[in-house]
């Protein structure tokens, strides 16, 4: 659910050593960070390494490995997290971004992965 609202339109921007965009959890509630099993970002067909991804909410930034044991912070319902990828940076212009989240939901008899693909422009 909310699959096509995961990537916030027009949110692509450059970061030191990489780029970022705003992403939302495709779910009808929030989740504690330890239950985010993976975030995979693909740019123009190229999968970015798990190590290069950072997740940032309300001024706090985590690696994906760190998140697995974060029990005192959450990704709230509808909250726009900054997804940072330290890939060395992107060229200005249009990029196709795929944002996939795998999350562990206690009551589900499977571990869902949900993804969204959008074309975003990076200002020069």
């Amino acid at each position, binding site marked *: *659910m*909310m*699959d*096509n*609202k995961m990537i916030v339109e027009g949110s692509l921007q450059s970061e030191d050593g990489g780029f970022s965009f705003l992403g*939302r959890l495709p779910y*009808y*509630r*929030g*989740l*504690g960070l*330890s*239950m985010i*099993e993976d975030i995979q970002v693909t740019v123009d067909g190229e999968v970015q390494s798990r190590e290069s991804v950072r997740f940032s909410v309300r001024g706090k930034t985590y690696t994906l490995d760190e998140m*697995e044991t974060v*029990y*005192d*912070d*959450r990704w*709230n*319902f*509808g909250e726009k997290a900054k997804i940072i990828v330290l890939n060395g940076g992107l060229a200005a212009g249009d990029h196709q971004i795929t944002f996939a989240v795998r999350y*562990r*939901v*206690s*009551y589900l008899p499977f571990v869902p992965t949900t993804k969204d693909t959008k074309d975003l422009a990076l200002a020069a």
Partner: protein
Amino acid sequence: MSKIKRGVSLYSYQNETFQGKMTLEDCIRTSAELGARGIEIIGEQTFWGWPEYGAADADVENWHRLIKQYDCTPVSHDFMLDYKRYKGRIMPFDEQVASVKRDIEFGARLGMKFIRALVSIAPEVLVAAAPHAEEHGIKILIEVHAPLHFDHPWIVRHAEAFEKSGSDALGFLPDMGMFLHAFPPVWKEKFLRIGVPRNIADYIEKAYADRVLSEYVILEVQEMGGTGPAIAMAETLRHNAAFEPKRMLDYMPRIHNIHGKFYQMMEDTNGDCVEPSIPYDEIVKVLQQGGYEGYICSEYEGNRWIEDAEEPDSVEQVRRQQVMLAKLLGEAEVPTIKTSPTASADAEATREAAE
């Protein structure tokens, strides 16, 4: 007039609240205008930061102010209990009980009568938390939801544990999605969009109407050449292995809230509204027969089945269900929305733009 009352789970408006198109005030006011004055929430959806950050006093005060302003009644805080919080191991029993206790307290703080437990929670956890619930005037209700049903051994185990506990703070919240008597048209349309051949989708829809055992349908779809999405469509039939509303009658003393689950409300030119896949006429009859006096809270779940093709209009869908429920309950007045459902969000946006 029926003693059954109408309510809304704000889950129904998730598509709008997720995007900030409706505020909590919009949700409560809209429900109240429809005469659905029982308000159910998923705590984590409505209260930013719950449970890790607790809920801010200001937010709770705002809740009570709105409930009072729109003459509503808090019904249920639906809690989640993430017992898989720790990767690779289940949350220890005592910690689960402590977590439920916090949700009991939160429910009481919001003026709720009930907190909703998911059916995956072990009955022993709820039994251990029951005295705390009693102290706070809260009942913990297990949501009985497809593929479970009142004859499933897991639910029978809960019922036995509740009886043995001697506590009346433990009960059930049946989700009417259990009683799916036809394949929902919005499901079928979604499966067609993701590539299920028309003849297979037609066959599955008819097999569901004919109440054929899921395993036969899955085989038949394989023999028709069905792959991925077609098999997935057939496998949804595994979810409804029993759908007799009358089975609620055995459990009426412990049924205190109802999820008025629906996937799609159709409206005809007379303004008559119907859920094509869930028999609300029969459901209301059974509940009346059982002497039910609680709320039926709208729970719109069609959003996720149509959002790939169109933007859901949750408010219109809830309105139609409330029109249907009011009629089935013998109410004379047709529920109507007077104020724009996005009035508060719009005002906020205007304020922000002006700043």
